[in-house]
């Protein structure tokens, strides 16, 4: 069986080749990147923005940003998938912050984590996804809620405090403890330095 470390090594090698082709302005590379990561990028956009049209707009923007500025992705610093997902999340959150009406509710944000992962190719990171989801589930319910609201919901710590009816100091602590615990759990599974 191929373990997650080796899947990661193979993927990173492919990422480097893709980054080189993008720098050389090879249009087939962006097509390939979309084939590989279109699903997760759209998934991230949809996770933050319920509206499929807005999600598509953000997903398109993320790939266009990579095409226009391929140097922004540094294979030495992480996977192309993580980079694209970061870009996508930032763009989606910017949109949510501009338009109060498209904010997702707490319930819809937190419920999705409960559903089991179904699926796909090692490229789309099945092993890693399962590990992160397990790690998220291993947080306390209040830590998970705060982290999910901030990360996928685009809430500031003050909004987290308001929404959960807790003091601001408690919201800060939950975010901090949540991320600290998450990292500890990911270190244990060997996914994070």
């Amino acid at each position, binding site marked *: 069986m191929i373990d997650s470390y080796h899947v990661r090594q193979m993927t990173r090698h492919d990422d480097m080749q893709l980054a080189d082709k993008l720098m050389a302005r090879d249009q087939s590379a962006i097509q390939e990147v979309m084939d590989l990561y279109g*699903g997760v990028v759209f998934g991230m956009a949809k996770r933050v923005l319920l509206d499929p049209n807005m999600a598509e707009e953000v997903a398109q923007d993320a790939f266009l940003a990579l095409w226009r500025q391929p140097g922004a992705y540094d294979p030495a610093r992480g996977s192309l998938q993580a980079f694209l997902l970061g870009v996508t999340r930032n763009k989606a959150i910017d949109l949510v912050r501009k338009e109060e009406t498209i904010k997702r509710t707490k319930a819809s944000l937190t419920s999705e984590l409960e559903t089991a992962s179904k699926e796909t190719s090692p490229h789309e990171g099945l092993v890693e996804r399962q590990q992160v989801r397990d790690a998220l589930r291993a947080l306390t319910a209040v830590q998970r809620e705060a982290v999910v609201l901030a990360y996928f919901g685009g809430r500031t710590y003050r909004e987290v405090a308001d929404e959960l009816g807790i003091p601001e100091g408690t919201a800060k602590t939950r975010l901090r403890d949540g*991320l600290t615990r998450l990292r500890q759990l990911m270190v244990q599974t060997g996914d994070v330095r």
Partner: protein
Amino acid sequence: MTERTHEELRSLVAAYVLGAVPSEEVGLVRNHILTCDECMAEADEHASAMDSLALAVEPIAVPAGFADRVMAQIAPPAEAQTASAATSRRNWLGDWVRSRGLALAGGMAALVLLGVLGASWIQTRQDLNRTEDVLSALILGDAIELRGEGGAAAELVPTNEGAVMAAAGLPEAPGSHVYQLWYMRDGEPVSVGTFQTRDGVVVMEVTESFDGYEDAAVTVEPRGGSRQPTSDPVLASF
């Protein structure tokens, strides 16, 4: 603002990494992280946790035609391709502007916009790319001009992604107020975003396309914006 202690700021490092610090505190926390080894180390650890968080997302099949729509935006027109292949992008932009002559752009607002772009906007290659869109719209006369009292002016320039608005001569909005940009169709305003100015100028990306709208206007509204304008426009295209 009162001095914040290291512990107070440290308690905000995780929120900062998550992008969950309100804009008025961001600078404070960022400056502290940059000058405090302990907080920088903590920020790095939180960042690695946050990177893994992204991987929890479930993939969803992209809508039909998605890749084609992206590719259509990537393939540049033949003329631009030849030009950009000939020189580096930065030089190409300079040559391009010079060769067409800025005089073609005409109008004070256009010059103001070019000044704003030059001063604050052209920082990355991505920005340069957008700047090309903006400049070409400006010079081809596709930009929408907004004017106001006392020389305040703005240009709204359609781009592939929506539009970019550059404004100058707008003083800071009064306390707890912001500027709000509206598109108008059949006299009905549609909010497309709020903004603030610095030193009287702003460049804002608008995700909503101007297609199908007739006019644009800017009003002063309470922070967070209003559903409908509550004051007379300070800038308008009509």
